[in-house]
């Protein structure tokens, strides 16, 4: 390899290689991993939240039902941006407040002083002495939790609808065979609801992919943040690689990334749909049955 110490003296190709491997670009490449990791964790957690929310919403226990319905109604109704701007700070303060109560029972100063939120140093999350990666991991976990709560509410609504779409005659049959409510739910409803939930869930997945730039509001530096930072015009005084406004190229690269990701998702969803349609009392399931016969 050649040295990147003095980029001004390099030829076009060498300059580009040095430029694209600068420390800042490495951070940019890593942020793709962060986004994919967020998607990989958030999707199953949201689905779990959604499942619990939907089950709660159809529960026979009234407070649980209110909780399930309230969760979906409130979270779906609040604009995402408000949720991501304020809820995360509130969540962080809530955790710190709990820790404060446990760790500093003798603390006599008020926790709220004007607009300040003051907990004892031991209750800070993470501790202010903690290395930066712990702060970043904590921030990332808060982001996952927030995304999961928001998308969980939408998923709950989709699953709630899907649970009701399972043909009613089947539930009556189950009852006639002496299934309990719980057995009907787990053996009839849950295995069959996915085919009805899939269109809604695939929509949610696409929206989740597109919502990842909200990460920056949560203090996690994502691909859009880095693309904007790297693409912005650089003056020779502040960078070894001065250049004009290159945001268009960086955003074009993001466009390609997002399109690739959504295309792969579409293919995967098409496969899952085909598999789940098998033996179902839906148009697609009926078609499969006739084709086989």
């Amino acid at each position: 390899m050649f040295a990147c110490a003095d980029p001004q003296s390099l030829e076009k190709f060498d300059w580009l290689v040095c430029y694209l491997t600068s420390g800042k670009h490495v951070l940019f490449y890593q942020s793709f991993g962060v986004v994919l990791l967020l998607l990989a964790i958030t999707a199953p957690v949201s689905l779990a939240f959604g499942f619990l929310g939907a089950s709660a919403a159809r529960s026979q226990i009234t407070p649980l039902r209110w909780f399930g319905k309230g969760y979906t109604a409130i979270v779906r109704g609040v604009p995402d941006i408000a949720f991501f701007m304020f809820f995360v700070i509130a969540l962080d303060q809530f955790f710190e407040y709990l820790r404060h109560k446990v760790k500093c029972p003798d603390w006599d100063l008020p926790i709220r002083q004007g607009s300040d939120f003051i907990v004892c140093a031991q209750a800070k999350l993470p501790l202010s002495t903690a290395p930066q990666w712990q702060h970043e991991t904590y921030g990332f976990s808060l982001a996952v939790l927030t995304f999961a709560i928001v998308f969980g509410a939408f998923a709950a609504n989709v699953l709630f609808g899907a649970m009701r779409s399972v043909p009613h005659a089947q539930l009556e049959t189950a009852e006639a065979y002496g299934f309990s409510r719980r057995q009907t739910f787990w053996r009839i409803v849950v295995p069959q609801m996915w085919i009805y939930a899939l269109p809604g869930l695939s929509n949610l997945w696409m929206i989740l992919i597109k919502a990842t730039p909200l990460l920056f509001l949560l203090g996690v530096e994502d691909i859009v943040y880095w693309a904007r930072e790297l693409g912005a015009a650089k003056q020779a005084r502040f960078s070894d690689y001065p250049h004009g406004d290159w945001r268009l190229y960086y955003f074009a690269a993001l466009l390609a990334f997002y399109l690739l990701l959504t295309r792969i998702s579409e293919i995967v969803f098409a496969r899952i749909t085909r598999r789940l349609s098998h033996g179902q009392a839906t148009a697609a399931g009926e078609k499969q049955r006739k084709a086989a016969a």
Partner: protein
Amino acid sequence: MRKLILSTAALALMSGAALAQETVRLGTEGAYPPYNYLDDNGEVAGYERELGDAICAQAELTCEWVTNDWDSIIPNLVSGNYDVIIAGMSITDERDEVIDFTEAYFPADPSAFISTSDAFDGTGEADAVLADKAFLEPIVAESGGELVFAGEDVILGDGIGIGVRESDGELKDKLNAAIAALKADGTVNTLIEKWFEGMEGPY
């Protein structure tokens, strides 16, 4: 869902018990050269980076740099995600109601309008931009005559200071003492002359 939140909270409660010496976390934006920006390695750099490190050394504090979006930079200070804001923030009355400022470490910088030399034909989306002159100067200088300063400079605020929580009097005193010492020994001046072309002390 409740269970999940509670177990996360329990996990959070258990992690990290030891109380070591205090670290001061410095929040900045990282997108406002020459005050603060990210260098080619993605590290915070600029006038405030060097000044902040000097202040920390002077006050014998362990410091850690953090970047945060400008729009949520004050909410994250008051809720304790970092301890100071050092981000080219002018001391204004509106901000002073929510947070406290140290003494200024940079004079009330004139803000200036820039616009394209032929802007007033009204075809562009914006005809002029108003921002700190020191931020605009390199942009105008490297625009090859496409951008020019327009109109008179405007003085906004009472200089640039370090933002601290109102309840953090002790830290504010420490920082003020350090800033005063660095002003007295000429460090602030040297840094201003290094980072801001055409600006001269004494400050």
